[in-house]
């Protein structure tokens, strides 16, 4: 009898230790809830004020506006956050800033897999991002909210990468064009013409090379950076419709025109047009090299334009930078004024929201996607609006660099997307792997293209089987 007693005692002791560990997490929200209600007078059923009793709640907000070059974007986000918190009683945002590619390729996929993404998150459009998560049911369907807020027709025709079956799951914050930034001081110093024709571009690159200046700054440790150049090469050499043709089978990576794009890139690598040791350089290094005058040009997205303001990270070259689109290629196909325009970056929202959080999301969308913020993005940050702005608003642009970006877009006969928002994620992965191998000299352009097409075929077949 005594034995059983001690046995039970020991068991209780041991299990209580276990339960204490488990109980800790569970009791937490209850206790904070208790202190919240404790601050208000003891609840009585007859109290009419219970409707405006403020229930405090926090919401996670993942953004990628970190570091000096992004400070204008962060300021806009901060203002939207502040305004939304004022409008929604009890709301407190928890801002969680992460580096772009860490968020996009590491953290967010893991959170999506685990089913606990942030409530509001920076999100890219396309088959490998927004559409993949939307199909898995992780993202909030924004169609009714857009309807309710009257935003449905305010957006330009830019919602497709964020849409599945006509439903919208994310909203692009703005757009960008990719082209060439060049240092006008350096060009003047060596008597070079602006790189608006192919011959001038090649002459400039050769002259810079001879004088010990890197023609094109690039940081290829993250392969998405050189992929920007490849994307525009493909758009120009194989025609603007090629990019969207990969998933339908209308275009092939190993077709001669696309291989020509890879060949051209490799040629430039071999000629020493790009930063030496580019495979060890980060995206940030590319801007640093350009700002320091070590490089005369760089191929980058127009989002970089705000880095060359007087109070920004690239102040050293403020007023000495110009933006042009890649000049017409001599053996190109299709419209040679076409540019890559992408409206890929924006915000998405978790499908798992309670009523309060849904209210906060609505307020966030209302405040973030307003004419005011779109105009601020354009004026302060050089981001092209993703919504329809009046001509009078656009005319307020005074920054010469942003004007050049707008000129490039206005002068473009056609636009094409970036293939990272078109092709399946496995295919995109393969383009990164193969491009780095090409740069390192491990594969020929044809081999790289064949390898990518192999993955594309498999993915297209899998998509057709679904």
């Amino acid at each position, binding site marked *: 009898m*005594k*034995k059983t007693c*001690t*046995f039970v005692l*020991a*068991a209780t*002791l*041991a*299990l209580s*230790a*276990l339960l204490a560990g488990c109980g800790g997490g569970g009791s937490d929200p209850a206790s904070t809830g208790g202190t919240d209600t404790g601050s208000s007078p003891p609840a009585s059923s007859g109290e009419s004020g219970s409707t405006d009793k403020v229930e405090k709640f926090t919401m996670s907000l993942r953004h990628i506006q970190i570091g000096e070059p992004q400070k204008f974007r962060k300021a806009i986000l901060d203002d939207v956050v502040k305004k939304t918190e004022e409008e929604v009683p009890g709301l407190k945002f928890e801002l969680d800033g992460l580096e772009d590619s860490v968020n996009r*390729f*590491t953290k967010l*996929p*893991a959170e*999506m*897999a685990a089913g606990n993404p942030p409530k509001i998150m920076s999100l890219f459009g396309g088959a490998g991002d927004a559409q*993949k*998560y939307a*199909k*898995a049911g*992780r993202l909030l369907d924004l169609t009714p909210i857009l309807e309710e807020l009257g935003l449905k027709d305010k957006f330009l025709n830019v919602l497709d990468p964020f849409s599945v079956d006509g439903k919208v799951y994310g909203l692009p914050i703005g757009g960008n064009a990719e082209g060439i930034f060049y240092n006008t001081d350096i060009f003047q110093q060596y008597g070079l013409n602006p790189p608006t024709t192919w011959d001038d571009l090649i002459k400039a690159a050769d002259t810079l090379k001879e004088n010990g200046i890197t023609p094109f700054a690039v940081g290829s*440790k993250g392969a998405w950076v050189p992929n920007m150049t490849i994307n525009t090469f493909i758009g120009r050499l194989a025609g603007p419709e090629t990019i969207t043709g990969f998933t339908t089978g209308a275009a092939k990576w190993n077709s001669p025109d696309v291989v020509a794009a890879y060949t051209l890139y490799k040629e430039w690598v071999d000629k020493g047009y790009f930063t*030496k*040791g*580019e*495979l*060890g*350089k980060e995206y940030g290094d590319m801007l640093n090299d350009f700002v320091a005058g070590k490089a005369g040009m760089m191929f980058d997205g127009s989002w970089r334009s705000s880095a060359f303001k007087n109070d920004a990270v690239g102040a050293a070259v403020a007023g000495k930078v110009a933006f042009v689109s890649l000049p017409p290629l001599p053996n190109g196909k299709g419209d040679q004024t076409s540019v890559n325009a992408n409206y890929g970056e924006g915000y998405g929202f978790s499908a798992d929201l309670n009523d309060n959080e849904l209210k906060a999301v609505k307020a966030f969308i209302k405040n973030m996607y307003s004419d005011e913020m779109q105009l601020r993005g354009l004026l302060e940050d050089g981001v092209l609006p993703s919504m329809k702005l009046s001509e009078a608003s656009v005319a307020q642009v005074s920054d010469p660099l942003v004007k050049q970006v707008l000129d490039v877009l206005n002068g473009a006969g056609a636009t094409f997307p970036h293939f990272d928002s078109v092709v399946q*994620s*496995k295919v995109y*992965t393969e383009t990164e*792997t193969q491009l*780095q*191998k090409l*740069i*390192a000299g*491990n594969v020929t352009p044809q081999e790289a293209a064949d390898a990518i097409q192999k993955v594309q075929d498999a993915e297209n077949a899998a998509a057709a089987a679904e």
Partner: protein
Amino acid sequence: MKNALRNPYVYLMFVLPAIALYFLFFIYPMLMSVYYGFTDWDGLSKPNFIGLDNFIAAFSDPEFRSSILNNIYILLFSCCVQVPIIVVLSLVIAGVRRLQGFYKTTVFMPSILSTSVIGILWGYIYDPDVGLLNNLLKLFGAGPIYWLAEPQWAMFAILITNAWQWVGFYIVLMLAAILAIPKDIDEAAGIDGATGVQRAWHLTVPLIKPVINVVIMLSIAGALRVVDIVLVMTGGGPAGATEVMASYMVNKAIKYGEYGYGTALSIIIFVIALVLTALYQILIARRQERVEY
């Protein structure tokens, strides 16, 4: 109470919570990962059972095969280059009369730094423009070497950094063994006229063989699971030149969302590590007799 403690079930009740936690956080995930290794799980949709496809794909995947080769390089480097250096350095430090504590502390220092710190630190040393190494080369008129950006140098650069990190730890292990050898053995040999080198090679080394074995085994295990230094310094680049099995697995599973395939890779890594350590144990370590002083 005395009686109760004689009852084995009482002890069982005390360890039960620990076993439950162990099962929850170790056994269960392990079993689940074996299951996921046979599926095409992408983290988002329902996993489909695909049999051995992942394993077949892994062995026909050129990237994975080259990452196995890279692991073998690291293994050979740590066993054939690192271990002799460790033995020699330990013998030298053990023979030092003055400031021995200083040397011991100095060689041990890198082991207390976190790998991220070491990776970033050496990243600066290898920096092509402002790095210590290239500035040294410049003094001798040699051109800049892009240590971490050129496929032919990157693996070597990582091997050096990895060695720098771990040599100190093993030296301290080895030193403890050397200093535990009774002095009279060494002195007797000295009186018989053996030189320092002879004493080190014919007396000390045979006497510390068990520890050398342990160090070799730890090196093998370490070489097979090395990943942190690669992720911090190159992320597997340039163009996959420094990709090791574990970093390839992390990239595939986490970055590209191929959880099923990544899990299959982790099982392969586990099996390879198990087989190699077992082989070493059976073929080499077991054959040696224990040393009794």
